[in-house]
């Protein structure tokens, strides 16, 4: 190969904040919020969900009477989606049951950290608690309801419904939108997103433990220690980027991510005093872009691009409640279309829709005390939803800036990455490489997707979010360079299995890898392997030019 790919950027922490330049184009600051388009029905939701509802989304307890809690996070299995969606479909109106809020004492069995509004834990911890409280009658009712609706559901596509979970919108959502630093002031670890799966598992699997084991204690203190470091780092007048990167590399606590990501991406300025004005300006700017872009209505749009986005948006994370709601889908459409129009060399390319989802979910998680994937975003105050959309747009733009040549004509960025990955795997796992060649498997046949969607079709969003902590800490090139090493490590991980398969087996296996149960642990293993590969090979480019 004649032209060498550009060398990778030296490893992290060398030049902290200079990677991203801030675009200086000023958009009319006079564009006040006009988020009418953002929320068809949300205008009075805020007042409707009174402050007293804070603790519990009065979820029907039908699921609670099922034999065992359905593990929410394994969303790749249809059964969990079924079971979970049932609660949506069947949800009786909130008024038909007495609110559990009144029934549940604040402390039970020495188990004081039960968070009623915790979305992820809700099917585990919540259910247990509720089943203690619900009268037998209720359980009977619910069982019947469950059966009825189950059969009904089979014939029914999952219909998103406005649900009681409005109670989980944080009361200070609007304030957080204006000052993300408020995220730090919340006591204790909330687990809105399921990022820290290990902690969740330990909580939900043994809700009755009185004496935490030594190991748990140590884990806990380690975690607290990390949280403290993050708080210290993030609450500085002027955040030290290299410190933040160092911390973020090993994973960001879920509740700090909505602040840490934009800092790492350079969307949010490091000096504290500039942040709220920057946010105001960028959100206003996005809003005017939207207004401008959609000013002439649908006919004024680039039909080809719009058509592609329109058919892809409903295919984005299908089956996940959040992404089936119209308000989410409209946000995503705008984000993708505005980006596409502003980047004519690539336009919208399938797969970019996937890349937008982690941002949206992470930002959404800042405003709700629940798993963002269960939320209907139209329950948010309109300015908050608009802020999520704008922040997602800008952060997605930052990410895509680093990998634009993945999406321009002929997709040279991907071609290059796949080629280099093949070369690298040839170096680090020659037997695998030879076996693939002998079977006629080309890297392009599977790794194309790995590059195009940054492995998002191979691992869960939760895994992706954790992975991006490290990517963002690595710096803006990580999504093209470091990712290559991650992909190589990812492939080699299955080496033993792959070497026993034939062409068809290999391709099929790589198309549906058994990563459904992956937690942060597997991702972190992968990242460390990639780190080692990166350290060894990134300064040894001549090895890649053997052909």
């Amino acid at each position, binding site marked *: 190969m004649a032209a060498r790919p550009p060398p990778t950027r030296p490893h992290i922490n060398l030049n902290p904040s200079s990677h991203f330049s801030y675009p200086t184009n000023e958009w009319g600051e006079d564009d006040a919020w006009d988020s009418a388009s953002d929320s068809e029905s949300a205008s009075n939701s805020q007042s409707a969900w009174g402050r007293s509802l804070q603790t519990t989304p009065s979820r029907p307890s039908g699921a609670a009477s099922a034999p065992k809690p359905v593990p929410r996070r394994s969303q790749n299995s*249809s059964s969990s989606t079924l079971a979970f969606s049932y609660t949506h479909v069947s949800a009786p109106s909130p008024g038909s049951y007495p609110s559990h809020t009144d029934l549940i004492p604040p402390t039970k069995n020495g188990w004081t950290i039960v968070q009623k509004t915790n979305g992820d834990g809700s099917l585990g911890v919540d259910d247990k608690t509720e089943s203690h409280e619900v009268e037998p009658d209720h359980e009977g009712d619910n069982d019947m309801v469950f059966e009825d609706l189950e059969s009904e559901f089979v014939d029914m596509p999952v219909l998103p419904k406005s649900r009681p979970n409005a109670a989980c919108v944080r009361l200070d959502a609007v304030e957080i939108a204006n000052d993300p630093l408020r995220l730090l002031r919340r006591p204790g670890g909330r687990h809105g997103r399921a990022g820290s799966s290990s902690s969740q598992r330990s909580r939900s699997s043994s809700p009755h433990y009185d004496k935490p084991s030594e190991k748990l204690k140590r884990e806990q203190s380690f975690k607290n220690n990390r949280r403290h470091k993050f708080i210290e780092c993030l609450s500085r007048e002027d955040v030290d980027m290299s410190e933040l990167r160092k911390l973020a590399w090993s994973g960001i606590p879920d509740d700090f991510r909505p602040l840490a990501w934009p800092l790492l991406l350079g969307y949010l300025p490091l000096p504290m005093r500039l942040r709220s004005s920057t946010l105001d300006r960028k959100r206003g700017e996005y809003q005017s872009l939207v207004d401008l872009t959609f000013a002439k209505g649908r006919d004024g749009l680039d039909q080809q691009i719009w058509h592609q986005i329109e058919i892809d948006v409903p295919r984005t994370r299908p089956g996940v409640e959040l992404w089936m709601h119209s308000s989410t889908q409209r946000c995503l459409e705008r984000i993708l279309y505005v980006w596409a129009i502003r980047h004519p060399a690539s336009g919208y390319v399938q797969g970019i829709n996937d890349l937008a989802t982690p941002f949206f979910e992470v930002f959404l998680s800042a405003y709700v005390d629940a798993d963002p994937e269960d939320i209907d975003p139209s329950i948010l105050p309109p300015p908050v939803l608009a802020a999520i959309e704008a922040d997602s747009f800008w952060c997605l733009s930052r990410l895509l800036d680093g990998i634009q040549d993945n999406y321009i004509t002929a997709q040279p960025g991907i071609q290059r990455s796949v080629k280099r990955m093949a070369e690298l795997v040839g170096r680090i796992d020659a037997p695998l490489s030879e076996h693939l060649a002998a*079977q006629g498997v080309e890297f392009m046949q599977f790794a194309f997707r790995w590059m195009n969607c940054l492995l998002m079709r191979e691992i869960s969003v939760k895994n992706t979010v954790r992975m991006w902590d490290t990517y963002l800490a690595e710096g803006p090139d990580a999504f093209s360079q470091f990712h290559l090493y991650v992909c190589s490590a990812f492939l080699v991980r299955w080496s033993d299995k792959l070497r026993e398969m034939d062409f068809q087996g290999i391709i099929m296996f790589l198309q549906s890898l058994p990563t459904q149960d992956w937690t942060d642990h597997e991702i972190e293993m992968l990242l460390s392997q990639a780190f080692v590969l990166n350290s060894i090979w990134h300064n040894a480019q001549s090895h890649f030019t053997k052909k």
Partner: protein
Amino acid sequence: MAEGSNFDYLFKVVLIGDSGVGKSSVSPFLVLSRFTRNEFNLETKSTIGVEFATRSITVDGKTLKAQIWDTAGQERYRAITAAYYRGAVGALLVYDIAKHATYVNVTRWLKELRDHADSNIVIMLVGNKSDLKHLRAVPTEEAKTFLNGLSFIETSALDASNVESAFQTILTDIYRIVSSKQLEQNADPIKPSRTGGGCC
């Protein structure tokens, strides 16, 4: 893997057509293998680049095995997907009976095949989503007469009608051509060596 290497013929078939016409759902067995498939949800994720599936049928006592490459419909992926036309002996060209534009584009796809695929490739036109009767924008008769010599079928991945026979038909067609050719001389498609073909 599962199907082993017991087959007499191996045919490479590509699934092509506009984005969103339901290429990936034309073949349910393919859908089932997909990482993301949730059978209670009608939406599947878009195909990125190319996805692979396989299917075997028996004709005249011979096992015909198809390697199906399901391609992404978006224009931007054309550079990638066109590489898969090489060596393909069959193409299922799918359009959406409820979206006239996808039918109009059939001509473009045919050109695409002419440019990149083997000239003897067997093409079958597939009008998908036949369950959407009330939205039909392409009359069956029109499509039938559109190209003579091209086999045509309407399918609905939703009720699985005709999806099976679409595959039956195209594979049988290919088989007839190949076996008659073989009488004359050697054929293009890959005939596996029964001894060592795969290593499973």
